[in-house]
């Protein structure tokens, strides 16, 4: 029987939605434990213990774990993985930063962006911005991977009653890396990675001021707000809104792309969306090749009209 250790992602004492998605992947492999590394893990551990099907939560309490520094976390995670058959983290910037460092300490390869579990040692993952799907087999021994969160629905956050245990590990932690600050974009809107609806704007929106039309539209729909890289690069909106190969990979039920041409690197980020809507004034924009519903229109005319129709 496989024993899978999932490392919890959390911020400000709250579990990140990516964790429950990684748990879904883990549960397809074997028995699932979650580890919470933090300066004060209690609240997050309680949340993790309530996730359906999780049988144990390990906590590592250490002031050094107040921030997610890979150089500090990786040796602890490597030590925690002892005795497990699998070590998983979500394929968020957190998992991407930390897990390869732990894998190298363990001398093991890492499967990035697991999108499907074929069997306990075999996984599907995308390469070339999702244009090719490969099936890879992990050599005998500990399997390490990041989980492509858009490929797995979150496991129910209630119903579990896992035992919470303080893990005792002793590893030397480095002091060569120091956290200074996190400039978190404050937004009242739903988190992009878990939002059921997302409205995104591209270069076609034209300016930072104009992006208000995207935010207002998102608020009208109770949606998260996203963007293309071109929009972020042009300074229309913050970087954490970027959707795509090198931004966030998302899977909302409804995705509305406004003034986005549909470059392959952007499409990669929305392939798993339920319904894709494109509003673009160019009838030949490649976004229409993937959109379920396309509207050839000026976004500055179409969006107010949609809002008016929604009442």
């Amino acid at each position, binding site marked *: 029987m496989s024993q899978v250790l999932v490392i919890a992602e959390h911020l400000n004492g709250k579990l990140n939605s990516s964790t429950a998605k990684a748990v879904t992947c883990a549960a397809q492999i074997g028995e699932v434990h979650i580890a919470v590394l933090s300066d004060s893990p209690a609240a997050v551990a309680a949340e993790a213990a309530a996730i359906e099907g999780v049988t144990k939560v390990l906590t590592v309490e250490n002031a050094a774990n107040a921030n997610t*520094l890979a*150089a500090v976390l*990786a040796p602890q995670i490597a030590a925690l993985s002892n005795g497990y058959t699998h070590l998983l983290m979500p394929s968020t*910037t957190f998992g*991407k*930063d*930390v*897990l*390869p*460092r732990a*894998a*190298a300490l363990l*001398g093991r*390869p890492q499967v*990035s*962006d697991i999108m499907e579990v074929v069997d306990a040692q*075999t996984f599907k993952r995308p390469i*070339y911005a999702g*244009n*090719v*799907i*490969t*099936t*890879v*087999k992990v*050599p005998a*021994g500990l399997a390490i991977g990041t989980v492509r969160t858009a490929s797995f629905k979150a496991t129910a956050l209630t119903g579990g009653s896992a035992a919470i245990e303080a893990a005792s590990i002793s590893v030397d932690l*480095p002091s*060569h*890396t*120091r*956290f*200074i*600050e*996190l400039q*978190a*974009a404050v937004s009242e809107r739903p988190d992009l*990675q878990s939002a059921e*609806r997302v409205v995104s704007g591209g270069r076609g929106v034209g300016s930072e001021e104009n992006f208000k039309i995207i935010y207002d539209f998102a608020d009208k729909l109770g949606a998260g707000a996203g963007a293309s890289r071109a929009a972020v*690069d042009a300074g229309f909106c*913050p*970087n954490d809104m970027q959707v795509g*190969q*090198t931004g966030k990979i998302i899977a909302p039920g*409804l995705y509305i792309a406004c003034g986005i041409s549909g470059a*392959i*690197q952007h499409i990669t980020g929305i*392939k798993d969306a339920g*319904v894709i*809507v494109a509003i673009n004034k160019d*009838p030949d924009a490649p976004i*229409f090749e*993937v*959109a*379920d*519903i*396309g*509207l050839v229109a000026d976004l500055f005319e179409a969006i107010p009209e*949609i809002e008016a129709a*929604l009442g």
Partner: protein
Amino acid sequence: MKILVGVKRVIDYNVRVQLKSDGSGVETNGVKMSVNPFDEIAIEEALRIRESGVEAEIIAVSIGTKDAQQQLRTALAMGADRAVLLETDSEVQSLDAAKALLSIAQKEEVDLVLVGKQAIDDDANQTGQMLAALWGRPQATFTSELTIADGKAKSLREVDAGLELIEVDLPALITVDLRLNEPRFVKMPDIMKAKRKPLDTIAFADLGISESPKLETVAYEPPPVRQAGAKVADVPALIAALKDKGVL
């Protein structure tokens, strides 16, 4: 200071990749190859550090076939001082790539290793972090702003929650993100000059690194295609279609 930059030869990002007809891999025959876009940003950043007045020697390193010399020449034309090809005809996975780059970093006693946040062929996003782990040195991944001073580097990192600022002691490993800079275009005279810059070749096998366990790729397949839907004539039709699909 000495800076090592990773330069991977990959299929150009504008190419629509195709599977080989027998499904045994991705077609690279007759396909345009380029420097991994993130690695161009890494080279550019090294150049800017030097141009800011820091005395720096920039060494571009690529692991790959003889053909990767082309990408190293591009790095030299951009302004790197010298290049090293770690030549092999075999696939080199991230952990071994990390070991190989590290062996050069240690031999050259570099202060900074700059690599891309990911190679756009395997999209692995691992090599830098693995190198830093094996080196026992700090890492600053997804860097979109970098300041070097007093033996330290400050990195503004693009993370899901926003922007994170960290400080690391040198030597350190930095992986670069798209917004760090915009790489310069190479000019004809620079291409000519680059031909005279040193490009050494070391057989990968002669590096003496211990081979790591490897992932085995057992199948390649195209992704499931999304059927394009239909265009609607106007906003009322759009709303009707959304209601029809049950998302409104």
